[in-house]
């Protein structure tokens, strides 16, 4: 489990990025980390990895401070950054020298993932396109079988078929002993995948709820008379809205609408989910 308690961080003392973040992310879920540009999603992932030191508050991974750089903590965690450089060697060679750090690495699984994603693990990584490199690293990260997989904008650069393969692989990856945290703006790419949504704003965590909790309390789609509308927007299909689900009606979650509702009407959302 990943927990943060009153976590604050700023790159300079004048520029505070994260403010009083208290949340917990449990295994067995795919957590979606959402927020406006510059709100600190990537910074939060870096703090979880122990790369940066919080100004105040704490981060714990299974009760251990990640900044202690204990091997047993780091070997259970992989982050796929939005931008990364891989060495100019083949994925097979890269995996051969990196696998000793991850005790549950499965070479066969990696080759399987590569096949599904359409990546040749025998060619030099610099001869691949940016999207192909990302797929190669995703295949490697999944094959490490770590219990915490952190993804920063994972679908950036992936082609349309690869996005659906990625979703399928990720859905098959998560079990009771594993969790995935996805920080993204491309919510449509991962909408069906997420089962816990975390929305950050300047004040801290605006929303941290499972998708079933959200659908229980909110209704998405066209409104009917008498609905307590929290947010609405005009689309080609007509007015789409987020409203309070008083009738217990089933509706399919629209993360984009939810996000806009949280940003434009945070107090209403906070009141519904009983959060600050």
């Amino acid at each position: 489990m990943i927990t943060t308690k009153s976590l604050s961080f700023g790159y300079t003392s004048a520029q505070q990025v994260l403010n009083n973040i208290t949340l917990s992310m449990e295994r067995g879920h795919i957590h979606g980390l959402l927020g406006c540009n510059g709100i600190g999603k990537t910074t939060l992932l870096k703090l979880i990895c122990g790369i940066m030191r919080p100004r105040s508050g704490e981060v714990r991974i299974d009760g251990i401070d990640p900044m202690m750089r204990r091997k047993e903590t780091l070997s259970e965690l992989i982050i796929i950054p939005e931008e990364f450089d891989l060495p100019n060697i083949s994925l097979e060679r890269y995996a051969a020298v990196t696998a000793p750090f991850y005790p549950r690495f499965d070479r066969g699984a990696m080759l399987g993932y590569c096949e599904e994603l359409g990546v040749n693990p025998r060619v030099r990584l610099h001869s691949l396109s940016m999207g192909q490199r990302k797929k190669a690293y995703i295949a490697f990260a999944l094959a490490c079988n770590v219990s915490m997989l952190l993804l920063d904008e994972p679908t950036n650069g992936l082609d349309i078929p690869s996005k659906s393969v990625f979703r399928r692989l990720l859905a098959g990856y998560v079990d009771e002993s594993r969790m995935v945290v996805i920080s993204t703006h491309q919510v449509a790419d991962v909408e069906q995948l997420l089962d816990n949504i975390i929305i950050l704003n300047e004040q801290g965590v605006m929303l941290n709820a499972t998708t079933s909790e959200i659908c229980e309390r909110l209704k998405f789609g066209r409104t009917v008379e008498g609905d307590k509308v929290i947010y609405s927007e005009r689309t080609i299909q007509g007015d789409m809205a987020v409203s309070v689900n008083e009738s217990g009606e089933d509706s399919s979650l629209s993360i984009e609408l939810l996000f806009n509702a949280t940003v434009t009407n945070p107090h209403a959302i906070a009141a519904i989910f009983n959060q600050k």
Partner: protein
Amino acid sequence: MKNNTLCGIVNYARYHYTTQYKLYLTLVLQLLLIPLFFGIITRDAESAYAMSVAVYIFGCFGLSRNMVLPMRERGTKIMEMTLPVTSCERMGFMLLNCIVLYPLTAFVMGALAVTLSTPFNHGEFDLLGQIGEMAVDNYFFYGIYIFIQIVLSGTLIINLLARRNLIVSYLISFVVVVAFATLVIRLGLEVLIRFDEYNENIENIVFVSIPQWLGILIYVLIPTTMYGVSYLLLRKRQVKW
């Protein structure tokens, strides 16, 4: 899973050399080709030999940069620092690289460069004899080795301290060294001028020599302290970047 194992150092060394092979290949080629080139154009194996020592010294800057580069580069920083390697293992690898592997590689490449340039020479150069001579007078070997360790540990600190602009860090340290040296020379000159004022002969200056064991201790303490500081910086900086 045990922290700080020899196996961890070996695994990290394997990972590091494989992922950074281009940088190390460049360094090894420099250690071989520059002395060889000088040996051929001057037709003098002694020049090749002298150049190999010079490249060995200047290569320190490249080596310390190579070791820290993955932790500094934007594209590799996050992956490198989330690798399950402890600071102690990383430093263990750096020490192995600085104290054993680099001097050994430089020596082998230098010897190879001298040997390869021999057919182009005017005169004769007995490499083994030269090395043998210096080995007997081991102050030279020891002096070069300790000097390299001081430069290496110093540049390692600069590399660990410099967040972004490495060149500026080197420039600052260069200015500090020059300022320090100038101060020392100026003080020395003042001493000489005073001697002159008192009509003292410069040749009469008595150099007070320190005991050999104290000299060795001082020269060993400098790199040891610097490597110690590097380790502390590595521990702190790794989590602060």
